[in-house]
């Protein structure tokens, strides 16, 4: 009868069934948040000082100043764009053999392990740290950036290419093998046609990423638009910084749009 007095309402089931675990996790999260927020040490006087600069930066977006540092911007953009193209091409050229070597289904075990470890090394080292070392070795300028981006491309492209090759339809490989062909014919007639559209898509995507990264490696001296941006921000020239950021956003948007069109046509 009590059911009639107290109307029963349906409640969605909780995400974690065990109440102890559920409340324990909540408690842990609260304690962590309290500890973490406690470590934020804010110098409010400096922040209030900075608010004025922040306002100028936002105002800079409304009135970007392209002319003040135009020569530097052009120089930086040329470096960034050329760096992006060459490093993507070099990166792809190195990634294809490594990616093929890292596909478990078509190479012997030792080759697989060697290629996988190259990929692991390239992926675990951050672009900016690699750039610092390469600048120390080959000197300032876009060449160090080129090397950094090529190196970073290997980890990205080879890994995805290898995964793609591992996922191919084995039927056509078998068909080519049945004709008595060698390993290279098997690769070029059985494997590559299947992964080519994806490879082109990934390369275009990487072109995008390399351009974005080229803006970062300049901060540590490896050439590109990042160096110009760094100088502009260091001198509190926020209107020039805004102009550079708008250019970067614009180029990324255009390249994303064109690459999506090309990818649609290829696939």
């Amino acid at each position, binding site marked *: 009868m009590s059911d009639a007095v107290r109307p029963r309402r349906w409640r*969605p089931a909780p*995400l974690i069934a065990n109440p102890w675990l559920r409340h324990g996790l909540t408690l842990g999260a609260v304690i*962590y948040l309290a500890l*973490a*927020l406690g*470590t*934020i*040490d*804010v*110098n409010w006087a*400096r*922040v209030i*000082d*900075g*608010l004025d*600069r*922040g306002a100028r*930066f936002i105002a800079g977006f409304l009135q970007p100043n392209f002319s003040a540092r135009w020569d530097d911007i052009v120089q930086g953009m*040329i*470096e960034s*764009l*050329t*760096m992006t*193209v*060459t490093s993507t*091409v070099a990166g792809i050229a190195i990634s294809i053999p490594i990616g093929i070597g890292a596909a478990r289904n078509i190479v012997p075990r030792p080759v697989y392990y060697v290629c996988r470890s190259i990929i692991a090394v390239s992926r*675990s080292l*951050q672009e*900016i*740290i690699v750039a*610092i*070392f390469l600048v*120390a*070795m*080959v*000197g300032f*300028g*876009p*060449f160090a950036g*080129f090397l950094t981006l090529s190196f970073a491309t290997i980890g990205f492209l080879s890994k995805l290419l290898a995964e793609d090759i591992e996922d191919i339809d084995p039927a056509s490989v078998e068909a080519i093998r049945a004709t008595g062909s060698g390993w290279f014919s098997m690769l070029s007639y059985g494997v590559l046609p299947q992964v080519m559209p994806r490879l082109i898509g990934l390369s275009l995507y990487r072109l995008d990423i390399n351009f*974005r*990264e080229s*803006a*970062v490696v300049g*901060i*540590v001296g490896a050439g590109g638009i*990042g160096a110009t*941006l*760094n100088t502009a*921000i*260091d001198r*509190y020239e926020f209107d020039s*910084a805004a102009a550079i*950021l708008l250019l*970067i*956003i614009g180029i*990324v*948007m255009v390249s*994303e749009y064109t690459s999506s069109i090309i990818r649609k046509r290829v696939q």
Partner: protein
Amino acid sequence: MAVQHLANGRFAWQRRTPKAEWLSWLAWLAGVALTVFCWRVMTENTIWDYVWDAPTQAADIGGRMVPPRWSYFPNIIKPLWDTLNIATLGTLLAVFISVPIAFLAARNTTPSVAFVRPLAIFVIVSSRSINAIIWALLLVSILGPGILAGIIAIALRSIGFIGKLLYEAIEEIDAKQVEAITATGASGPQTLAYAIVPQIMPAFAGITVFRWDINIRESTVLGLVGAGGIGLNLESSLNTLAWPQVTLILLVILGTVVVSEWISARIRHAII
């Protein structure tokens, strides 16, 4: 594939039409020409003596880097904790901002496809096109050096990532469940809570953990531009050419990244 009709009534199979063949050759030629041109422009000012000298330099630096200076380890425990906080709090902040943006950007939940959606997409694209380090550079000059600049930089960069993946997940939901809930006479917020949110919850959790893992990686270098964390120690060690310390810091960063990747992989396996 093109099939050619021969005079004797038979067919000849070709991979491409002659026109397509020519076009593909032209595209390759243009690509090669562009690369060569870019290479020449890029290496105009390169001093090749430095480049040829690189192996010697690398060997020199490598020699100085071993063995790592283990006694420096106590000095980087606090910066490491700061780095973890930058990544975690930055991800949390990004979640709070990007969830509403994702709902505004998804075609099936946005209030207006013509006005609000492009605006939300613009926010997502701009956040994605600018790296966390650049955001940090800006925020350090506005807010001053410290963890706060790092947290906001990480958050600003993550909005685009979480927003994009989440709005794609929202657009892919099963419309039937929404219809079923709406048919019961549910209001807008009720439809959201009972038809849409349960469907995207696993994707959302996966995306957040994935971004957290990326953010750990990114937050380790934010200190290079003054935004707090272990990168500050890396910067000062590099400036004083204390290579054994650099090695130790890099090893610690590598360890942290591996552990965070493992945690995120475990969590994602558990949810999805």
